[in-house]
């Protein structure tokens, strides 16, 4: 064994002096190459070993992908039979396969490689969320007892989002009154649970959609939003800030009023988004 190791060090020691980028390029080159030549497994293993050592040195407490996966299985997927059956079912349908892959990737990123708020734009985002959290927490101590038990069997019907808010004794002036041409209201949901109150409306135009969500909550579990990293604009109307982001192809605007967090999301142009914002509380 030691003899084998010595041979490898002797044979491949040239890679020790190469920079990481070059070694990565060599690995990529091998992975991209047609699978017809004589495999050089030892050389690949040696390069990977060098890279792993460098990574460990730069991040001594970090976790490898394999370790992350083990952590997931040990800590977050305690039902081993479930994990096994999930893998079996993954073969049955492409969508299910995609679920498993996506879930594994998400878990690896969450468990092993959390990305900190390192960019300024993300610090700004964090500030926004923190500020919302503070406002929401102040709401907790004030009105906790006023949230009712869930009424998921409600048969209430609403003609508009404003109508839903009025019938729920909420302020209807917090939602836009203008919707881009061609969009029609598809449905409205009033979802009241012990610690969260949501009014949600979706508008459809062919393959496009817009949603408006009005919510408050009395829990310290905050709504998690998918957004691209860059803040597009802070649009100010009547001294109120509307933070406009993109989530892949869609635009979204966040704002707060009183104890409510409000979100417009959808297939909108910036101009349409701003016009919707301008219409809040009007007419």
């Amino acid at each position, binding site marked *: 064994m030691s003899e084998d190791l010595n041979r490898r060090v002797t044979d491949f020691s040239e890679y020790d002096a190469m920079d990481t980028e070059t070694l990565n390029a060599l690995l*990529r080159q*091998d*992975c991209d190459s047609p699978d017809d030549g004589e495999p050089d497994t030892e050389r*690949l293993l040696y390069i990977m070993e060098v890279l792993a050592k460098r990574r460990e040195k730069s991040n001594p407490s970090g976790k490898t*992908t394999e370790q992350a996966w083990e952590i997931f299985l040990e800590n977050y997927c305690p039902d081993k039979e479930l994990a096994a059956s999930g893998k079996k079912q993954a073969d049955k349908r492409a969508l299910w396969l995609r679920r498993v892959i996506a879930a594994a990737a998400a878990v690896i990123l969450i468990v092993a490689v959390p990305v*900190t708020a390192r960019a300024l734009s993300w610090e700004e*985002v964090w500030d926004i*969320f923190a500020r919302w959290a503070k406002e929401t927490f102040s709401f907790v101590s004030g009105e906790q007892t006023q949230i009712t038990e869930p009424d998921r069997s409600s048969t209430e019907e609403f003609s508009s989002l404003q109508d839903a808010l009025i019938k729920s004794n909420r302020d209807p002036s917090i939602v836009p009154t203008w919707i881009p041409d061609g969009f029609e209201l598809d449905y409205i949901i009033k979802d009241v*649970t012990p610690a969260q109150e949501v009014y949600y409306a979706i508008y459809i135009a062919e393959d496009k959609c817009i949603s408006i969500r009005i919510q408050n909550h009395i829990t310290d579990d905050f709504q998690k939003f998918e957004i691209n990293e860059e803040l597009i604009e802070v649009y100010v109307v009547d001294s109120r800030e509307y933070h406009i982001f993109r989530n892949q192809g869609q635009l979204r605007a966040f704002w707060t009023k009183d104890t409510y967090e409000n979100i417009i999301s959808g297939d909108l142009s910036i101009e349409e988004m701003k016009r919707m914002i301008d219409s809040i509380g009007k007419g």
Partner: protein
Amino acid sequence: MDNHRKTLLVRMAAVILIVSLCVPMTVGSATETTVQPRASYYLDNYNAYVYLPGDGEVRVYFNVQGTRYMDELGVLSISIYECSTNSSNEDDWTWVHTFTHDSTAGMLSYNDSYHSGYVSLNGYVGRYYKAYVCVWGGKDGDGDARYFWTSAKC
């Protein structure tokens, strides 16, 4: 193991290594406060929380909003954990039960843009509970999953 298979395995490992090296690394656990700039073609927003109505019942409420109508939308799994204190040490928490979409009705909705609901089990008064949740939005054979912890409640 034949040479060909061995080479394939090595190449797979190399791909994983390359991908992992491309991601900035920091030290931390899943429960640390981190901000992850992520966007999704499928998921718009989501949340879950533990609610204890009394008599030892443990409920986990969830809501998931898609970016548009999704073929599948909701939660794939909810794992509930229990502890006698609100310990920050993960080892102190005991796994109680995992609800999955294929064994629990109502966790997934089909052809929908918003889905919510809750799962429930009997626990003990005076103990802390928290949940690890996997939300999912899928359309046209593709989709995104996200994992997160709820806060602990007693």
